[in-house]
């Protein structure tokens, strides 16, 4: 799980072009949206593409997606349960 979270953080940084950030800068449980990392609805769509491309998980409804994307922890748990690759 730790390795997955670390990889995931790196993928998030790359996919959202979070310049100058390192995985160690992102807390597992910190909220990704709103006050936390400050991501917005477009970023959430980008992250859903990340889940599909890297883990084969397709989320059709953007609102469902937001719940999964609350934090790195919630994303990692969802990936573990639903990944197809």
């Amino acid at each position, binding site marked *: 799980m730790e390795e997955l979270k670390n990889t995931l953080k790196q993928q998030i940084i790359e*996919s959202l072009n979070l*310049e100058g950030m390192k995985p160690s800068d992102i807390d597992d449980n910190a909220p990704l949206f709103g006050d936390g990392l*400050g991501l917005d609805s*477009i970023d959430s*769509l*980008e992250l859903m*593409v990340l889940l*599909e*491309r890297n883990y084969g998980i397709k989320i059709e409804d953007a609102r469902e997606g937001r719940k999964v994307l609350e934090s790195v922890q919630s994303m990692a748990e969802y990936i573990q349960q639903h990944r197809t690759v």
Partner: protein
Amino acid sequence: MMQPVYILSASIVSPQQHFEDSGFLQDIKEYAGGVLSVVEPNYRGYINPVAIRRMSKLLKMGISCGMNALQQANIEKPQAIITGTGRGSMVDTEQFLMSMIENEEEVLTPTSFIQSTYNSINGWLALQTKCTGYNQTYVNRGTSFELALFDALMLLNEAEEEMQVLAGCFDEITPDYIKVKSKIGYWKKPAPVNIELYQHSETQGTIAGEGTAFFTLSNKAENAICSLQAVKTMQDAQPVEVMDAINRLLDQHGLALDAIDVLLCGMNGDSRQQPLYDELADIAGEHTTIAAFKHLCGEYDTSSGFATWIATEMFRAQEIPGTLVIKKGSHKEIKNILLVNHYILNSHSILLLQNVQ
């Protein structure tokens, strides 16, 4: 007839200089490959730091240039934002299109799609300035910027109170664009060095450029650099029709061609459009300086934005940098400037600007 409006500030990002550089075309850059890319300023400070990470070059250029023009004029929030672009963000369009083709229409990311919409820069400028006023984008090839200026002119004439408008333009080149247009004879082969462009005016083709220019305009003359008197656009016009339009426009403003101090021409080294500029040069009298600008910025749909910035700098400095001069005139001051431009795809435009001092 509409009343003149006033340009309060002008800002550019161009292949010669950008808004953080001081001086007016002092350090002319030479380009040998037929492609003139912009020199980029530091965008931070002009754009929301969270948003900037997603933005392509054109968006960063356009937004920062617009914000800078406002800053120069000490305007926090304009009442309207009007822009023109010939091609919009080609990088974003190409990226989404290629991704769609390569991924066979599956699993596509939205950012480049959203940013490929022609009014995305307008949206960002409105967001950053909290400007909820009139907001418009013209995408009409070689007259896109002129239409934005014309709309600003109309809007400022319609206003019952003092009003300030942000008007600008932006266009970029990409390797794909250069390649694609070379197949229909846009570019000179081989490409001349840009500063020698007009020595090759008997062959077809030109050199490619890009840039952005933004201006703040008002219906009040206070603190203005110059006035915008008239804007005229034409499509599929013969040189004789353009000459006719120039003479009528000047006549409406109590001027004749031989009284123009600076005739700023959009000649681009392409023989197909050179006859108009040759005729203008023949008719223009001793009084008039004939100047050209496309050797500095290259050819693109909204190069007249760069030319308009040049005009504002000429009024401000009351000087004409040598690099612009085709033929020096005997006029003492620069009281009026007539910009006559064309674009590859058969459009022409005429702008009349006057000093306010």
